[in-house]
């Protein structure tokens, strides 16, 4: 598509297998990365994408197979030697050097990477400044990495990898958690980097991005390569749709690049209209933050009984902070929270749970060493009514039959989607009147996300109000009655979900259309 590769193989991986215990996370994958191309890699969670990158970059040693970089065998090389040869990467979960400044973070790449030997410390710091300009982080140069927002951290990681002067960059979900506008910016940045002569290997769940920038796409599933080709070829393959995309996204993917918005309809379960107009949660002029840093200013919000409300906004806008403040994991500084007529502004977290507000946190946060059933039972920690607990367990199993099959498995062994189901189940077990769901789809394959969104609607139809925070703004609004827009800690807009979907400002800001 854009800057195509010249075809010379840069990195050649043959028969890469990585076993953990008996399980093959990667099973004899052959993959060639050509000089100058952007190779996109997609696949459901647990497909082995990150493990594959770990094998190439030396963080994991492959069980078998060979890796050649520019013809040289690097299979058994330690990471740092691989790094010095000119291969660098970012991490799926950002790993900044937290206590150092942005400049020093990037300078590390410049002083130790492929051309580190040629630079002194001060030259490396100059080089860092240059790279930071390129990724647009120059205004944060003297801040500690700890002070950056997620999207800034993603750029910082990219800058650090770039500063190593690597010829080949592995980018592991650099766009996860970015909103649509940011994604457009990130795509542009990656193209620019690629044009500068850097070969890119991009793992991404954001289909729009992968379709938009990749010269070629590889699909991994269960540790095996199931498809390879141009983006369009791959999307058209039925097994890819079945394994990964799901019907809805398959269709959406085709939309990419077209300027007008295409309404996606049909199989979606739309939210039913709320039953009552009675207010359940009332938040007035709430402010909060962490330590010295304020995050939320004067936020007001209302949720009525039986309603699904979507909360949207850019990364770092304070969505998770708002949820955590409602759960009292973060203490409010001013303002009030009232729930079903009770003032909960100064309540402790367990009182919030008792009152009927339950948060399903970002990243699931299951108790990995407890079984699925124990996780669900932990959800009823505050309840003592044994018989009803049994009934509730039955009804959660009925709603989420997967969980019943896995009841005695450790939660840590579940796939991403199953984990999210377990987290939802755990939340439901305490019979919440209001469910706060944070980033339902984060890190999940589109097919799974579809299923979970349907579940939310069904939970709602049983009478539970839902506050849904979701990076996929469109999906969230399509499943909500009303929506709120949070921008840098302030509530800037609210209204019926359909209106927000059609609001041109929202579409521009968050849907990138």
């Amino acid at each position, binding site marked *: 598509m854009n800057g195509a590769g010249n075809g010379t193989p840069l990195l050649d991986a043959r028969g890469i297998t990585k076993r953990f215990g008996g399980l093959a996370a990667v099973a004899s994958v052959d993959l060639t990365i050509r000089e100058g191309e952007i190779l996109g890699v997609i696949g459901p969670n647990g497909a082995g994408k990150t493990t594959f990158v770990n094998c190439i970059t030396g*963080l994991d040693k492959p069980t078998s197979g060979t890796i050649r970089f520019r013809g040289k065998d690097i299979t058994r090389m330690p990471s*740092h030697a691989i790094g010095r040869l000119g291969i660098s990467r970012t991490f799926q979960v950002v*790993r*900044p050097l937290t206590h150092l400044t942005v400049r*020093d973070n990037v300078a590390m790449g410049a002083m130790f*990477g492929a051309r580190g030997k040629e630079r002194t410390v001060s030259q490396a710091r100059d080089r860092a400044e240059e790279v930071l300009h390129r990724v647009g982080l120059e205004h944060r140069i003297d801040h500690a990495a700890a002070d950056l927002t997620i999207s800034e951290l993603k750029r910082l990681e990219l800058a*650090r990898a770039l500063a*190593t002067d690597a010829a080949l960059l592995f980018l592991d979900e650099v766009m996860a958690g970015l909103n649509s506008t940011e994604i457009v910016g990130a795509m542009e940045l990656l193209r620019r980097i690629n044009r500068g002569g850097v070969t890119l290997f991009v793992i991404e769940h954001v289909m729009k991005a992968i379709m938009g920038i990749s010269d070629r796409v590889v699909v991994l599933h269960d540790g095996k390569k199931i498809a390879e080709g141009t983006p369009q070829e791959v999307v058209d393959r039925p097994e890819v749709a079945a394994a990964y995309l799901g019907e809805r996204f398959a269709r959406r993917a085709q939309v990419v690049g077209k300027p007008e918005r295409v309404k996606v309809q049909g199989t979606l379960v739309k939210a039913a209209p709320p039953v009552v107009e009675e207010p359940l949660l009332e938040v007035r002029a709430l402010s909060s933050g962490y330590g010295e840093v304020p995050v939320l200013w004067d936020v007001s919000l209302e949720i009525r009984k039986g309603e699904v409300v979507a909360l949207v906004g850019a990364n770092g806008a304070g969505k998770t902070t708002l949820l955590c403040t409602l759960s009292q994991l973060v203490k409010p500084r001013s303002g009030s929270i009232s729930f079903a007529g009770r003032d909960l502004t100064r309540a402790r977290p367990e009182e919030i749970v008792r009152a009927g507000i339950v948060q399903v946190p970002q990243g699931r946060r299951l108790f990995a060493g407890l079984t699925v059933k124990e996780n669900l039972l932990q959800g009823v920690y505050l309840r003592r009514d044994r018989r009803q607990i049994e009934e509730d367990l039955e009804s959660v199993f009925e709603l989420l039959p997967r969980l019943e099959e896995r009841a005695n498995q450790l939660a840590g062994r579940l796939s991403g989607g199953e984990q999210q189901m377990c987290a939802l189940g755990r939340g439901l077990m305490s019979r919440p009147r209001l469910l706060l769901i944070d980033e339902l789809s984060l890190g999940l394959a589109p097919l799974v996300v579809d299923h979970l969104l349907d579940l939310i609607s069904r939970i709602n139809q049983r009478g539970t109000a839902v506050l849904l925070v979701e990076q996929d703004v469109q999906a969230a609004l399509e499943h909500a009655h009303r929506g709120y827009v949070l921008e840098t800690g302030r509530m800037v807009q609210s209204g019926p979900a359909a209106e927000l979907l059609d609001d041109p400002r929202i579409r521009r800001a968050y849907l990138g259309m």
Partner: protein
Amino acid sequence: MARAVLLAVVLAALLLVPSLVSPYTLLTYTSALCLALMAQGWNLIGGYTGYAAFGNVAFVGIGAYTTGLLMLSRWHVPFVPALFAAALVSALLATVIGIPVLRLKGHYFAIATLGVAEAFREIASAWDDLTNGATGIDLPVRSDSRFFYYVALALVVGGIVITARLERSKLGYGWVAIREDQDAARMLGIDTTVFKVAAFALSAAFAACAGGIIAYQDIHVAPDDFFKIEYTLQMIIACIIGGTGTVWGPPVGAAVYQLLSTYVWSHFLELHPTVLGVLIILFVVFLPRGLMDLFRRMAAVARGGRFGSDVFLANVRASRLE
């Protein structure tokens, strides 16, 4: 500029100390300097590289024995060359031990190093032919307390200069990168094993110098007196009091710790470990980032910030659990 003047004044004062105080007081100052030296060494591995080493006392002991045995050997090596040889031997041993042990992380590294120190203590007790076992060895007597003071002072000043230079070098940057995130550091091309072993070996050399000085001053070297966990704890406490991962933290912390413990000990004869325990607890709870951090905050106040009890309580608030 003001800083340079201040440093010169402090150095001049330190050089004059021996003519101003009694030999005993000088002795406590020498002890403080030796502690500072150990703490400076620990700071490289524990502070900059972020590895909670709990066995650095092994190198104090090895330094003491090497210095002593060389001086007693048939070559009668003079003290200063013996001290340098001891530093070298310790550094070499640290390299050999470090390669496997530095693969460990967190608590596991801590206990493994603790174990190494214990093992060395026992070897020193049991290896009669070399170390004269539990009886220990006796060094030649030298009763010039100024000599020990100046040697220790020179090494501490050298330690400050070395630390300051390393902090701005690639080695120092690499250590900090390892402390912050080892995998990320590796991916940037840092050979973490080499960097960590370098930090460990250097810290061992510092500890060995301190051990050698103490050995020569105390005349007698026995396993239980040198391979004891108190030294490890003292160097860590000194670092914590001063501030880990800073150039000035360890010497400042060592001075404060020595002052405190001398004071406590002479005023609370039977309860001094209790009082010292309470002091450690107070420092850890209220000033976990050390005095250097406090000084920085105070400097910020001088430039127009505000200052209140919340300087201390902020630390509590940051690390307590509601």
